[in-house]
């Protein structure tokens, strides 16, 4: 359960989050949408404690996360851009994270799923963007934590891997997890998301299901519905 209250964050003069309040009590898939620079990543990073907000509070499972770190054992996070230390091999990186977490993991299964066996002994610096993203996915999904946060999970993936990823996310949802996803691929949102949280200019502009959004904007497809939403605002 995630509870965010009046969260404010600015970088210099740019106000990125301007009093965001959001409460996610249920299990399911929540898509965080919004134009570039609307504060999606900042919101996610605040939940993870990587960005420190100027005001407001965030509670995970009832405890305020300010200054804490232990709560992160309940969160699996997929960062937006898969960047890893270049001189480690894939297997070394996976073992390192396993060692740091000290939790049970199903990395072997995921390595097989994404066909990463041939790359295990290669250095991360030599991998292609898509393969790095697969390693990124393995690192995120290999632990069984109740909250999953995925920042642009589809970046660089081929269609086959994309299908596998969708299956994987559905499976995680069925096991009763809370999943936050940011993405710009509307097709992905339509097929996957239970609820949409639409961020605009540092605040939540809309929250509801895909159908509600379509009804509100009187459009049949999501892409246009969002475009309408944006032009209404202007």
């Amino acid at each position, binding site marked *: 359960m995630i509870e965010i209250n009046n969260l404010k964050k600015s970088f210099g003069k740019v106000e990125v989050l301007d009093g965001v309040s959001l409460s996610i009590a249920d299990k399911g898939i929540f898509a965080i949408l919004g134009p570039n620079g609307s504060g999606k990543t900042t919101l996610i990073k605040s939940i*993870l404690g*990587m960005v420190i907000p100027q005001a407001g509070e965030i509670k995970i499972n009832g405890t305020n996360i300010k*200054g804490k770190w232990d709560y*992160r054992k309940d969160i699996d996070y997929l960062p937006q851009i898969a960047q890893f*230390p270049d*001189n480690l091999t894939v297997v070394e990186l996976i073992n*390192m994270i396993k060692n*740091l977490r000290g939790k049970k993991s199903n990395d072997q299964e995921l390595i097989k799923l994404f066909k990463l066996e041939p790359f295990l002994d290669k250095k991360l610096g030599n991998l292609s963007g898509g393969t790095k993203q697969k390693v990124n996915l393995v690192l995120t999904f290999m632990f069984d934590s109740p909250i999953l946060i995925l920042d642009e999970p589809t970046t660089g993936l081929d269609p086959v891997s994309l299908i596998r990823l969708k299956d994987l996310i559905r499976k995680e949802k069925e096991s009763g997890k809370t999943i936050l996803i940011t993405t710009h691929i509307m097709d992905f949102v339509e097929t996957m998301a239970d609820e949409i949280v639409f961020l605009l200019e540092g605040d939540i502009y809309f929250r509801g299901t895909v159908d509600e959004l379509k009804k509100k904007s009187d459009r049949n497809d999501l892409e246009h519905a969002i475009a309408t939403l944006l032009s209404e605002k202007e």
Partner: protein
Amino acid sequence: MIKVLQYSFYDLIRSRWSYVYLLFYLVLGFALLFLNSSVSKSIITLMNIIIVLTPMIGTIFGVMYYYSSREFTELLLAQPMKRTTIFLGQYLGVSLSLTLSLVLGLGIPFTFYGLWQSAEMANFGLLLLSGSFLTFIFVALAYNIGLSNDNKIKGFGYAILVWLFMAVIYDGLFLISLIVFEDYPLDKFTLLATMFNPIDLSRILILLKLDISALLGYTGAVFQKFFGTNRGMISSLLVLSIWTLVPVYLITRKASKKDF
């Protein structure tokens, strides 16, 4: 913290630059002993090199490692770990691997030369100790610079400036002020000015130990007069520890406030 330290240490030990650094000290140690054929003379020459070189390598390596491990850091930040653990682990990893290169690189040639039987053992130990102190101090300063500057080029620039200031410019300013104010009593000023520069301080520390301080500079003489050799040494070691602990404390403070 031990786990982060391990990975950083292991990461650095495998890098080519650690070997180059180690090799440099090996060659330097053997060459000096071969040319000087006396352990005590070699120690004085080494002092002059170490006092300038360890801070330089410390700052450059520190800043380089900070920037090149940013991805690694972000990966760790999303794990259930304390921020201070992550940064202190990395800091200790860098400092320890550099110190290891120094101690092994000079220790091996001197051991071959029969240091353990010679009376210079303590002096050599002190030389390595102040070299290690300087490494820890300047890596910590470099980490502070890295944490305060997201721009790599700026960070490198400031790091090199800090080294240049401490190693060269500071002494120049110091000397000029001694000449300008030569009509006044300057012993207290000299003492204080030395305390504020870890490089000068290490130099004094070794000179006091070698017992040639009176010959080798005004500050040394003042130091000896003020403290007597033992007290002078203990207080310089104390100040060096402060020089290490304050930047390390600042690392933890900066790290816990920064956005990633």
